[in-house]
């Protein structure tokens, strides 16, 4: 999500599942929706059947998505930026862009500082020792009025448009084909199909998932695609968008709720340890408009922050203590999962909790993770199922070859409920908060996660009350006003998340009018205040449980516009809006680009339509408030200024384990072979395999029959795919004398797995930069717990390297070798 927010302002799927039916063209790349999201993929088949849409699939493998595609192109794992950068070059050189959209709604005319440079594959400000950039030069030129300088004629060589054009002019079809292995004419065919959607009444939707995220340049792959969509004018449009298909049922919810090292709820961010001054901390986040007349919604940051602190600490958070600023831990560095396992491996971590997460199976380099867990003093797992992580100390032969006697970790395995045994809300990819209901009691003594968290917290609080201890304030003052303290109900918690008035709220325009009385639930985040009169657990969700009740439980599926915009079904953040940036579905004067797919329009006095407008309701088009209201520029960014860690424009870098010796874009600069700012730990640098010993490109993925490491516990799923396998193409099989059904060993520098070989025409040999590249496909679903046949943890093979923005590991492109057993 750290790529859509820097581009558009919010980090989430721009459209929603049903809207895909409105597309004219669908690109599935960096994902495999038919297999990983079959019921969402239905809307692709609907678009094809009822909207004459075409489907393009670009993937190293001919997947089950490709099986129903109109056009499939192979692409080498890890080279998507080269491919999409080539598309940008094609669109610009053939002038196939939605001119009016691009000029009005993007930053093309913005002038960039003169000291921003890009040389030999490296952006200005690089610090090699720290493997990171000083991003101060990646910025616009500002005028004396504080606004960005622009050149609407696009003649200035330093304007974003010309910098972008120059940057991607290197991505010629010949070079693209050489890097990606996609035959040139097939690549050009895809370009032509996409270019047709530059017409204002044609849209392409892009569906992607972990196939883009899980690279050392994953965020930038997504960025490149987002740029293509902006050039074509496909953002904010019905049937358009950048549709991030998230992997888990509530991964969107947990991201929104900020369960990450550096976040608070609703994309508020934790202070860094240098931010000792509260006022400065807030001011940095309250973003003033960078262009005249723009909404710049983060101007309201303080209201959201104060309301959160009131929700957590009640009266203990007040103006005089800067709303309990000291209660918030201050960051010294990122503590993402890779960092934590690195620290754990170094013996710096004593205790670890895994709540519904199975890191031994899900994290790269299983051996390192297993060793790290063995250094813990205590490990607590909370899960409905028996996970490999909870059993990391058990010997399971070659699947988990450890000696329990030598592992001193205390392990608690706590049973939790599953979905069927609890009430609550999950947020889908399309940002819908949907309530679900309990149907049965859990087995045995299993408890809900709410009860388990309450149980641990209340014991801990009692200990602090009795014994005192380190900094007890936040523990003793945490609000816990649940009817049954040991079992907070999902309904109580949902109401807390929505937020309420702590005192009577009056209309700022008419002080005699009380908008909400003290104690009442709030209707929307517009009612939040920064004076302590409101509390709110997660501002973007405000409106989900109002005085009218639980809006997430709404079940009106009527679709008056016929566009699949069921605004009476559940609740969609923000503000029940279904298609983000929908102001951009209209031209600058407020008329829909495509009158046949009318989502909203300006009726002369306000914005109205089938969706909740993503703009101030009375913002007249003539006043020039632009559609990307979260960005202080008001427009979408091709040039992301300082928002990305590895460059304001995406650049192709090779995966950390690449079959090539150089980056073909920068053959003379070894420093630009891999992403210069990607996350690599010192000890892991020598854990990369080279192409001499490990000549084949491997990529890991899900199969449609299984879900991660859960369904191997499910008999019905195990029947469909009972046993671990790997897939290889016919050429490699011939070379290695492997036949379908043979057992093989796949080895990377970090370890090996054994599996059955599936030899297939669906994995092609690619011609890449003068050599043949063979791909080995590795489904991930097996382990040593479950009803399916035991297997090896696929992440035994994967490298410990992360994206520069998200720290997401590079599961999708690494090197292996394969042999018949």
């Amino acid at each position, binding site marked *: 999500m750290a790529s859509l927010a820097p581009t558009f302002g919010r980090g989430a799927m721009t459209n929603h599942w049903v809207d895909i039916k409105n597309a004219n063209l669908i690109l599935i790349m960096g994902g495999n929706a038919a297999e990983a999201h079959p019921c*969402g993929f239905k809307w692709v088949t609907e678009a094809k059947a009822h909207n004459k849409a075409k489907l393009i699939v670009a993937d190293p493998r001919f997947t089950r998505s490709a099986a129903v595609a109109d056009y499939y192109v192979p692409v080498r794992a890890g080279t998507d930026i080269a491919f999409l950068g080539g598309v940008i070059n094609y669109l610009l050189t053939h002038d196939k862009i939605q001119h009016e959209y691009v000029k009005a709604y993007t930053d093309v005319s913005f002038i960039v500082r003169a000291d921003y440079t890009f040389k030999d594959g490296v952006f200005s400000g690089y610090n090699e020792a720290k493997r990171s950039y000083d991003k101060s030069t990646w910025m616009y030129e500002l005028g004396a009025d504080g606004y960005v300088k622009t050149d609407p004629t696009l003649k200035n060589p330093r304007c974003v448009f010309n910098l972008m054009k120059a940057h991607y002019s290197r991505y010629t079809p010949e070079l693209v084909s050489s890097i990606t292995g996609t035959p040139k004419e097939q690549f050009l065919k895809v370009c032509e199909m996409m270019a047709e959607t530059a017409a204002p009444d044609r849209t392409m939707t892009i569906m992607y998932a972990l196939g883009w995220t899980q690279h050392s340049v994953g965020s930038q792959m997504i960025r490149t695609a987002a740029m293509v969509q902006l050039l074509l004018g496909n953002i904010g449009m019905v049937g358009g968008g950048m549709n991030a298909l998230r992997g888990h049922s509530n991964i969107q919810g947990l991201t929104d709720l900020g369960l990450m090292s550096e976040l608070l709820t609703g994309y508020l961010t934790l202070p860094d340890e240098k931010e000792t001054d509260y006022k400065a901390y807030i001011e940095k986040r309250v973003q003033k408009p960078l262009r005249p007349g723009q909404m710049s919604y983060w101007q309201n940051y303080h209201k959201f922050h104060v309301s959160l602190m009131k929700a957590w600490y009640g009266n203990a958070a007040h103006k005089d203590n800067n709303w309990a600023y000291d209660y918030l831990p201050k960051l*010294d560095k990122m503590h993402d999962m890779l960092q934590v396992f690195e620290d754990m491996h170094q013996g710096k971590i004593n205790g670890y909790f895994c709540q519904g997460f199975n890191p031994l199976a899900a994290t790269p380099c299983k051996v390192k993770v297993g060793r790290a867990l063995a250094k813990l003093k205590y490990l607590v797992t909370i899960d409905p199922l*028996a996970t490999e992580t909870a059993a990391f100390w058990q010997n399971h032969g070659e699947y988990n070859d450890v000696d*329990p006697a030598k592992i001193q970790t205390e392990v*608690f395995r706590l049973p939790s409920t599953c979905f069927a045994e609890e009430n609550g809300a999950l947020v889908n990819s399309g940002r819908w*908060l949907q309530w679900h209901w309990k149907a049965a009691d859990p087995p045995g003594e299993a408890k809900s996660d709410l009860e388990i968290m309450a*149980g641990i917290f209340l014991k801990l609080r009692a*200990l602090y009350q009795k014994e005192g201890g380190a900094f007890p304030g*936040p523990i003793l003052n945490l609000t816990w006003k649940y009817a049954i303290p040991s079992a907070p109900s*999902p309904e109580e918690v949902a109401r807390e998340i929505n937020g309420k008035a702590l005192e009577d709220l009056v209309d700022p325009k008419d002080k005699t009018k009380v908008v909400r009385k003290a104690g009442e639930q709030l209707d929307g985040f517009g009612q939040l205040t920064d004076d302590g009169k409101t509390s709110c657990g997660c501002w973007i969700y405000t409106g989900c449980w109002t005085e009218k009740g639980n809006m997430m439980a709404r079940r009106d599926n009527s679709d008056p516009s016929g566009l699949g915009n069921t605004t009476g079904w559940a609740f969609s953040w923000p503000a029940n809006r279904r298609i983000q940036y929908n102001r951009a579905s209209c031209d600058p004067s407020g008329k829909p680009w495509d009158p046949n797919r009318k989502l909203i329009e300006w009726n002369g006095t306000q914005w109205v339509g089938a969706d909740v407008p993503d703009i101030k309701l009375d913002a007249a088009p003539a006043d020039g408030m632009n559609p990307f209201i979260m960005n202080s520029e008001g427009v979408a960014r091709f040039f992301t200024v300082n928002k990305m860690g590895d460059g304001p424009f995406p650049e192709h870098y090779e995966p950390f384990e690449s079959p090539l010796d150089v980056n073909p874009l920068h053959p003379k600069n070894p420093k630009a072979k891999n992403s210069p700012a990607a996350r690599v730990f010192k000890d892991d640098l020598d854990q990369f395999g080279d192409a001499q010993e490990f000549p084949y490109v491997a990529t890991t993925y899900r199969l449609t029959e299984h879900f991660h490491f859960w369904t191997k516990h499910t008999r019905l799923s195990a029947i469909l795919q009972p046993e671990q396998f790997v897939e290889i193409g016919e050429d490699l099989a011939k070379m290695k004398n492997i036949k379908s059904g043979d057992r093989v060993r796949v080895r990377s520098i970090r370890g090996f797995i054994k599996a059955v070989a599936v030899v297939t025409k669906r994995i092609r040999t690619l011609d890449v930069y003068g050599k043949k590249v063979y791909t080995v496909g590795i489904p991930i679903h097996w382990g040593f717990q479950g009803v399916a046949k035991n297997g090896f943890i696929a992440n035994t093979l994967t490298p410990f390297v992360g994206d520069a923005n998200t720290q997401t590991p590079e599961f999708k492109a690494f090197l292996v070798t394969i042999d018949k057993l």
Partner: protein
Amino acid sequence: MGSVTRRQFLQFSAVSAAGLGASSLGVLGFSPNQVLAEVRQYKLERTTETRNTCPYCSVACGLLMYSLGDKAKNAPAEIIHIEGDPDHPVNRGTLCPKGAGLLDFVHSPNRLKYPEYRAPGSDKFVRISWDEAFDRIARLMKDDRDKNFIAKNADGATVNRWLSTGFLAASASSNETGYLTHKVVRNLGILAFDNQARF
């Protein structure tokens, strides 16, 4: 005659030519009453229907879960069947192979039933009570936090963080679980906090 076994049939058909004859059993006076057949009874007739959301991917398909019993006091509900919710705008009643098999997830033999504890160096889990589990976990946490809590960094700035214990949350748990977990974890000062959102 209602019980001609396969063996008996083979016995007498063995002496007949090419296994024929059988087709004429009806001619010889079989009463259709004996062979009338009813389709299998519709098994959901009086079950209780509960709406839910599939816990797997982010499509969030609507589910109908059918449980035995009518919620009467003496009949604890047991889920016997799960299928798609036809009213749901996204899945419209459909479910993928994983979702269609959710019944076996709910009833997986690997569902955990009791809190368990594995002592240092031990090769097995032993069952413990929730109280024991919470007591011991809280004690371990407090000892570690009190010992390793960092109130100020080297520059003397207030940082109030606890780095020696970490927490991984689940992106398949509900918003309410996620929120309450965040609330508890963050206010202890934990920074080593993550979920599958990066994945």
